[in-house]
């Protein structure tokens, strides 16, 4: 589904609301195995993006995503800032590169399914960039443990509800993991039994986006 300015603006607003709603919950998750600020950090980031939403949503999608990433990096700080920032900046850059390549070779427009495949490929690259930034990988009990399965679902053309459900379960699945990255890793065994706050915020945002796509999808 192509995103126009109204979609993007609406999505920014919805993501901000979602984080606001779960701000305390994210803080509490982070208190248990980190330093308790993940909710406040994410809120600060989403508020900054929200303040710029008018300027952002009129940009072409790749530029808009890259801009969102930069705003997140420059406002969140902590671990979450560079990670979410890298994700969106790389997504934007990847899409821009794809558009450029597509335009150069362009014989015909891509159909929706091809576009999805393409997007999944770009996302895969972006997720890899996040992993490189965090020097981390699957099973480390981080937001990557949501990003990897979400990307995989997308690559297999799952429906939005399916992807949302996958994100939710993936976040919950971090509960039993032993943290090997971020502040939670200082707890060693004691990190087991608590859901990772970054995975949780990542699932919330994924679910919000999927929900929007489901609602907007031509039925």
């Amino acid at each position: 589904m192509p995103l126009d300015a109204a979609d993007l603006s609406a999505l920014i607003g919805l993501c901000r609301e979602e984080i606001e709603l779960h701000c305390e919950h994210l803080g509490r998750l982070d208190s248990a195995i980190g330093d308790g600020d993940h909710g406040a950090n994410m809120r600060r980031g989403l508020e900054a993006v929200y303040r710029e939403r008018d300027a952002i949503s009129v940009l072409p999608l790749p530029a808009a995503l890259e801009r969102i990433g930069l705003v997140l990096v420059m406002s969140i700080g902590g671990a979450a800032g560079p990670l979410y920032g890298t994700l969106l900046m790389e997504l934007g850059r990847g899409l821009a590169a794809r558009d450029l390549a597509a335009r150069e070779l362009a014989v015909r427009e891509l159909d929706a399914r091809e576009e999805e495949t393409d997007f999944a490929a770009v996302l895969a690259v972006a997720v890899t960039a996040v992993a490189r930034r965090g020097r981390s990988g699957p099973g480390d009990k981080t937001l990557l443990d949501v990003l990897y399965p979400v990307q995989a679902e997308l690559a297999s053309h799952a429906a939005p509800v399916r992807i949302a459900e996958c994100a939710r379960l993936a976040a919950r699945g971090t509960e039993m993991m032993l943290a090997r990255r971020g502040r939670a890793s200082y707890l060693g065994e004691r990190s087991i039994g608590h859901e990772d706050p970054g995975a949780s915020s990542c699932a919330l945002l994924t679910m919000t986006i999927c929900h929007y796509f489901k609602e907007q999808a031509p039925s």
Partner: protein
Amino acid sequence: MTRILHAAETAVAQSLAGFVAAHEELVTFGRDDKFVRRRTLSPGKVAVISGGGAGHEPLHCGFIGVGMLDAACTGHVFTSPTPDQILAAMDETDTGAGCLLVVKNYDGDVMNFEMAAEMAADRHRIETVIVEDDAAYGPSVRSRGRRGVAGTMVVEKLLGAAAERGEDLAGLKALGEGLSGRLRSMGVALRGVTLPDNTRETFALGPDEMEIGVGIHGEPGLYRTGRAGADEIVRLLCEPVLAQLSPLTDARPLLIVNGFGGTPPIELHLAHNLTRAFLRQHGIVPARALVGTFVTSLDMAGLSVTLALLTPEEFALWCAPVTTPTLVW
């Protein structure tokens, strides 16, 4: 802030403004108040820049001045500063010899400083020294290395003095990395941290409990145990420190007893005295000792012991003159 309630978003900025106003002969705000810097820079000297989340004061801003830091970037409470702050600090304080970044080893700090360094790679020569002195976490436990805690001030002092003396970027990097095996710290919390946003503690300790191996972000420590007497606490802190320090012949031991923010001087000096006694039994007599509140975790009650086995040259750098809001000699 934590107890003195104030809107969490503006509290850090207000506190920084109060700090700068109290020390305006030494420091000033950088562009858009994104960082704090020395009032007067030394052209041709490597700019030594550090930073981290707020809540650790006087680290880092209290160490800006002749013989130590050129600039420090402060993030929100317990949150690394953002790359734009670090970029602004580099742009304003690099007088030609490049920038040395001193970064505590937390994923957030490392990533934000790293992004800033990548973004500025075209216009600054940059080296980074990662501080990882926390004896609570050996590299075996965590492949990403130890946390940076109170030992950070030792690294900042030595690198600051060396930069003042005219050391170049490569020399400073080598000095910082050479120190890492001989610098260890270990902390204990006796009461958790009250976060500014809410009056909740990050980890709640009963009156008869203590948390050993804590860091400086209100995160829980290595293990929790019953409240012990001062002698026992000192033993629990010093043993891992001694076990992890690489031995050095002709070492000049430097001892720092650091309060976490909620522990008063009378207790720190008591712990200092017991620590000296413990070290003496292990054949170590500090060449210098520093006791006070230097690297805090908001109002956490507790303290850390830092031991650095310095070479004679490093010790000379420690003793070299310094004029900052916190250290003057």
